[in-house]
């Protein structure tokens, strides 16, 4: 891996909630900038064709159709990115409350997709659609999951897969983050993540074997009001 794991961890420190928000928005706005760049160049291409047309070069309907298709596709991509970021940002509206963890995790996974892609890692979410209502601080719960995801991502190598999963037990929600490697992996240092998880009444249990690492975050269905408030 070109970018070593220590560098990766330092780039995304767990020090503050602002850093969590910053890491997400920096990554997402970078992707949005790529979308804008494509739209800008596509618009430029259209201007080039029109300039040529004024000089007598014909513009084919196929060219216009192709350009319109690219603009439409990138606009859809950009709108999806903005909607995901907007849903994420609104997660910080209320200090605590009922929310759908399944949807929130799916959204977080999509926001983190670019960070995984830049490392050549495949990020999956399973089940793709799941509703699991719980009561707590959405922002802090997502922060915990994200930091654990970054920790495990720092261990991943090109072509490996990380699966983010969610299941409900009798009294808790279990978020699993599994790195499939087919090789023995060391468990990353999760001391900072455990402190942050403790603030929302959550627990972190890592395990490794010859196929990779799995880290389970156990979240209470209702975060005690005295914890982390």
């Amino acid at each position, binding site marked *: 891996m*070109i970018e070593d794991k220590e560098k990766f961890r330092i780039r995304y420190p767990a020090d503050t909630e602002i850093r969590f928000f910053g890491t997400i928005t920096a990554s997402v706005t970078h992707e949005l900038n*790529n979308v804008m760049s*494509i739209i*800008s160049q596509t618009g430029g291409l259209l201007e080039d064709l029109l300039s040529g047309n004024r000089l007598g070069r014909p513009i084919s309907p196929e060219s216009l159709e192709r350009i319109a298709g690219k603009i439409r596709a990138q606009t859809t991509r950009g709108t999806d990115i903005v909607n995901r970021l907007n849903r994420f940002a609104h997660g910080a509206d209320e200090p605590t409350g009922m929310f759908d963890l399944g949807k929130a995790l799916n959204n977080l996974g999509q926001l983190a997709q670019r960070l995984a*892609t830049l490392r050549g890692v495949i990020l999956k979410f399973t089940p793709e659609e799941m509703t699991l209502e719980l009561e707590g601080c959405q922002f802090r719960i997502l922060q915990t999951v994200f930091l654990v995801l970054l920790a495990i991502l720092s261990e991943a190598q090109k072509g490996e897969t990380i699966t983010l999963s969610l299941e409900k037990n009798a009294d808790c929600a279990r978020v699993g983050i599994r790195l499939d490697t087919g090789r023995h992996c060391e468990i990353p240092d999760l001391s900072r993540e455990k402190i942050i998880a403790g603030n929302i009444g959550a627990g972190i249990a890592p395990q490794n074997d010859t196929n990779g690492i799995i880290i389970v975050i156990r979240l209470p269905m209702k975060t005690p009001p005295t914890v982390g408030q």
Partner: protein
Amino acid sequence: MAKVLLVDDEKDFREILAERMMGRGLDADTAESGFKALEMIESKSYDAIILDLAMPEMDGMETLKRLLAKQPHLQVIVLTGQATVQKGVEAVKLGAADFLEKPAEIESLMAKIEEAQARKLALFEQDLDKKISDITRKKGW
């Protein structure tokens, strides 16, 4: 005709930009990764490489280092989408010829390519002069 290689993991971006450059008389090739760019410079001499910094697997900085290790006179213009000139400055310190922030205007890019081509020619002439003076010194002319 200036020969340019565009290195960017965004397919639409590199294809559209290449099309616009070809419309302006450039010979523009594209590469989807740093690895591919490293392969392509082996078989063709480029006047300028337009390199995106944020790419999967091998990022732009690493690609830049490896390109310059293979061909120190290569004129690499870095494209940064990271809303800061810091990365661009870092790239120039590593040996990039110049940098532009995304989304870059085609006219700015064309001007940078023209400058890069002139620099490459100047470096070539410098090398040639040095070779000639080495030969004349050795021969005692």
